[in-house]
């Protein structure tokens, strides 16, 4: 029993601290995020610069703080877009089955097969460049994974007694799907959500390579990780910092998700 709450507490503490850092960064960062300093390039972590400086002499800590805004933005919006549509589509496919399920699943296969980068390029060329559209594109790209997981959960659960009883009592399909089956399928969806979160943050990095993500000099953890790669031998801390924070935020949401799922299981 104790362990279940532990992962919840770890999750909450990590996310809370990162959220606090992000909120602080909205109006204060130790140094201006884009301020360069010629003679302090690649400075190792020190009291002045707790996480050292990058190849422009910019303070890495300030950029990490500012970057957390993008991480939360990209992660949460992408996962909610992908999650909401994915779960609805998956639920419909799994619950009703038949031709509808077949059609939806084929559509999902097509979306999965279509290279994400190509989709993002197309989406952005139609709806205009900008971080907002890129995030929505990333969200849409994660719909198939949510849909597939929800569908498999619904297929399994719709055979159970409690669903048959609800049907016999004349409960509407919608209520059965979302107030009866959905809570039971929540824990795999939460796992998918935390997986979706981490791939969203990383796709922003890949897309920023194509000029679609956050535009420099504004920082994003994905882009910092990308750019710091070539300085790994010279200033390893510049690579480690974004890597750790990406891991932390995903870890935080994983534990949070795990905790919620277990809490939810225990109530049954």
């Amino acid at each position, binding site marked *: 029993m104790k362990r279940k709450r532990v992962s919840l507490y770890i999750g909450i503490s990590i996310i809370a601290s990162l959220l606090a850092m992000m909120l602080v960064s909205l109006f204060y960062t130790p140094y201006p995020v884009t301020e360069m300093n010629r003679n302090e390039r690649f400075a190792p972590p020190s009291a002045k610069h707790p996480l050292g400086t990058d190849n422009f002499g910019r303070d890495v800590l300030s950029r990490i703080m500012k970057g957390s805004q993008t991480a939360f933005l990209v992660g949460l919006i992408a996962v909610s877009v992908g999650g909401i549509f994915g779960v609805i589509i998956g639920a419909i496919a799994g619950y009703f089955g038949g031709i509808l399920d*077949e059609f939806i699943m084929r559509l999902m296969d097509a979306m999965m097969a279509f290279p994400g980068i190509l989709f993002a390029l197309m989406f952005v060329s139609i709806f205009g460049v900008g971080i907002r559209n890129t995030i929505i594109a990333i969200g849409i790209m994660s719909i198939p994974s949510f849909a597939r997981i929800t569908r498999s959960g619904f297929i399994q659960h719709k055979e159970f007694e409690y669903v048959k009883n609800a049907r016999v009592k004349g409960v509407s399909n919608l209520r059965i799907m979302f107030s009866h089956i959905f809570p039971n399928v929540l824990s795999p969806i939460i796992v998918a959500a935390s997986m979706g979160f981490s791939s969203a943050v990383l796709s922003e990095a890949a897309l920023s390579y194509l000029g679609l993500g956050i535009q420099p000099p504004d920082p994003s953890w994905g882009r910092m990780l990308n750019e710091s790669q070539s300085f790994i031998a010279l200033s390893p801390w510049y690579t480690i910092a974004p890597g750790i924070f990406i891991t932390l935020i995903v870890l935080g949401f994983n534990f949070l998700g795990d905790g919620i799922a277990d809490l939810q*299981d225990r109530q049954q």
Partner: protein
Amino acid sequence: MYIYLRKLFAMLATVFLVSMITFITFEIIPGDPVLARLGVDADEAQIRALSEELGLDEPLSKRFFGWITGLFTGDLGQSIRYSRPVSELILDRLPVTLSLALISMALIVIIGVPLGILSARYGDRLPGISISIVSQIGMAVPSFWTGIILMYIFGLTLRWVSPGGYTPWSVDPVEAFKSLLLPAVAIALPSIATVTRYTRNTVMEQMKNNYVRLAFSKGLKMNAVLFRHVLKNALIPVITVLGMITANILGGSIVIEQVFTLPGVGRLLINAISVRDLPLVQGMVLYISLVIVVTNFLIDIVYTLIDPRIKLR
């Protein structure tokens, strides 16, 4: 038998759908393949010669159906960027991506599932907690970061594997496996963690069922109950995740091929997109959609094999 026919038709429909979307996308996104190939220093005469040769000014529908008809004869057309048959380019690099995908999938199943069962069995005790924490971290670490670190440790410092060197299977299988192992681990790590968590959740759920108590009442040991009875029941949701993970592996290999300079399809795809090489992208999207559609089809089959209650619809 009718079911299989319908499934086959559905699969072809998906592949057709994806190919059409790809064609339309290339109409929408700006960028001219001729200039993309020749670059800023191109001489006007050379640009003209290449444009005429490629015949890019034909209408979209004509080119699309030309491509489809070519499909039936196995001719995927000529790559704009490399002036070579697309099929030759893909087949040349398929072994890398396929073996990478297979090795990482094997790692995921061989390590992920048992770990999941163990962490379900020792749920609240130390081994259970430590496995789930490690799997959490595994899932969170960005795969290309693990790639770089693995490359750094095993490539440069320990010299077990030569970074950037890839020997094809035909030349030296052992060497080929060695050069594919590290990237496969980098791709597999996050998915191992996912499978571990999934297996743990579903196994714990299944343990609550009455047939488990019946199994114990027959005098079976814990392991026998776990592996002979519970595992099979817990596999269904896990297999769904494996289906999804195939897509991640294909996606993941794009990044990892870059970090480990492996001549796989992933890197070729990124390159082809940036130089607007439609025939090559088309060929690769075809290959990727076939892999995904076939994997999902296999998963549906495996569902019916495992659970007699589920009929192939």
